[in-house]
C-alpha cells in the first residue's frame, strides 16, 4: 500500500491561516491503514485546528468528511454539492488523492495534509518499510523475490557493494542489505548459482524516467 506520514500541524496552519471555512477530507484506504489520513486523523486535525483558531480569537468552521477513496471519480463526486462552500480543502489522502481532488474541483484551493512516502508494507504496528518503487518492469523473478531497486540504496542490480557488513547497509546500520537478503533467499531456494547471471542494463523508460506513465486496458474499458 501507499505509506504516508502526517504533516506537522504548523505547516498545515501556514497554508490555511487565512481561511474562514475549511474541509478536512480523509481517505479510507491506505492512509487509514498507516494511520496518517483516515477518519481518526481527520478528527484530531480538525479539532486541533478549531482550537488553534479559537486561541487566535477566530472561530473558523471546520468540517470533517472521510471518503471511501480519493483516487476514484465516484467517491470524489460525493462532495460535489458541498465542495464550493469552503475556502479550502485539506486532503489527508496520498498525493494521488490530493491531485485528483484538485483536478476535479478546479477552482477550489486544495492542500496536502500528509507527506506521501513510499509503497510499503506494515512490518509491525507503527513500522512501515519500503518494498517497491513501481519501476514498471518487475525484476523480482531474478532476485529471489527481493527488490534491489527499492531496497538497495544504490539500486545495484548485480550484487552487494563493498559496504555490505553483517547483513546491514553501509548507509544505516539498521537497514538490511538488500543483496544479503537476496543471497540468503537464493540459498534457501537452493538457487545460489542464479546470482552469477548478469542482469542486463535496465530499461528505465517504464520508470519515472520515461515521463508520467499510464496503463490502458482496452479490454475492460467501457
Amino acid at each position: 500500500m501507499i505509506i504516508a506520514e502526517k504533516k506537522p500541524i504548523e505547516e498545515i496552519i501556514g497554508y490555511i491561516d487565512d481561511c474562514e471555512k475549511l474541509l478536512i477530507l480523509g481517505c479510507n484506504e491506505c492512509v487509514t491503514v498507516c494511520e496518517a489520513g483516515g477518519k481518526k486523523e481527520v478528527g484530531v486535525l480538525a479539532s486541533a485546528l478549531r482550537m488553534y483558531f479559537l486561541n487566535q480569537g477566530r472561530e473558523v468552521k471546520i468540517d470533517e468528511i472521510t471518503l471511501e477513496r480519493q483516487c476514484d471519480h465516484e467517491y470524489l463526486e460525493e462532495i460535489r454539492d458541498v465542495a464550493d462552500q469552503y475556502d479550502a480543502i485539506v486532503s489527508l489522502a496520498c498525493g494521488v488523492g490530493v491531485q485528483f481532488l484538485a483536478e476535479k474541483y478546479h477552482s477550489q484551493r486544495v492542500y496536502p495534509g500528509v507527506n506521501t512516502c513510499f509503497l510499503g508494507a506494515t512490518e509491525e504496528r507503527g513500522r512501515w518499510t519500503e518494498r517497491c518503487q513501481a519501476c514498471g518492469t518487475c525484476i523480482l523473478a531474478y532476485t529471489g523475490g527481493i527488490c534491489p531497486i527499492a531496497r538497495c540504496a544504490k539500486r545495484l542490480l548485480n550484487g552487494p557493494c563493498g559496504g555490505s557488513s553483517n547483513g546491514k547497509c553501509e548507509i544505516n546500520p539498521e537497514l538490511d542489505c538488500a543483496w544479503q537478503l537476496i543471497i540468503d533467499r537464493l540459498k534457501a531456494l537452493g538457487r545460489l548459482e542464479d546470482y552469477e547471471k548478469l542482469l542486463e542494463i535496465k530499461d528505465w523508460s517504464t520508470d519515472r524516467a520515461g515521463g508520467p506513465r499510464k496503463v490502458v486496458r482496452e479490454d475492460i474499458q467501457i
Partner: protein
Amino acid sequence: MRLNYPTSLRIIRVPCSGKVDIIHILRAFEKGADGVCVFSCMDGDCHFKTGNFRARKRVEQAQKLLDTIGTGGERLKMYSLGSGDGPPFAKYATEMHEKIKELGPNPIKKHKKNAA
C-alpha cells in the same frame, strides 16, 4: 476512607487507560474543559499488559499538540496509581485542581465568547 477531592473533576470511566485516544483528550478541551487528567494503573500492573504505556505515549503526543495550538500541554497530565489507591487519587486530583486554578480557564472559552 471518606476522602475529599475537588468537585471540579468530572470522572469519565474507561475500561483501561489504553482506551484513551488523542481525539478524546482534544474533544474534552474543545468542549471547554480547563484541564484533562488521565489516571492509569502503575507501570507493569496493566490488566491488558501495555494499556498504560500506550496511554502515556498518547498523552505525550497530545501535550505537544496542545502546546502547538496555543492551549498549552501543561493542562493535560497523566498520573499512575493502584486501583484501590484512594489517598493518592485525592492528592493528585487536588494537585491538578490547584494547577488549573493557577493557569486559569481554557483560553478557547474566552475567544469563543468573543467570536460569538
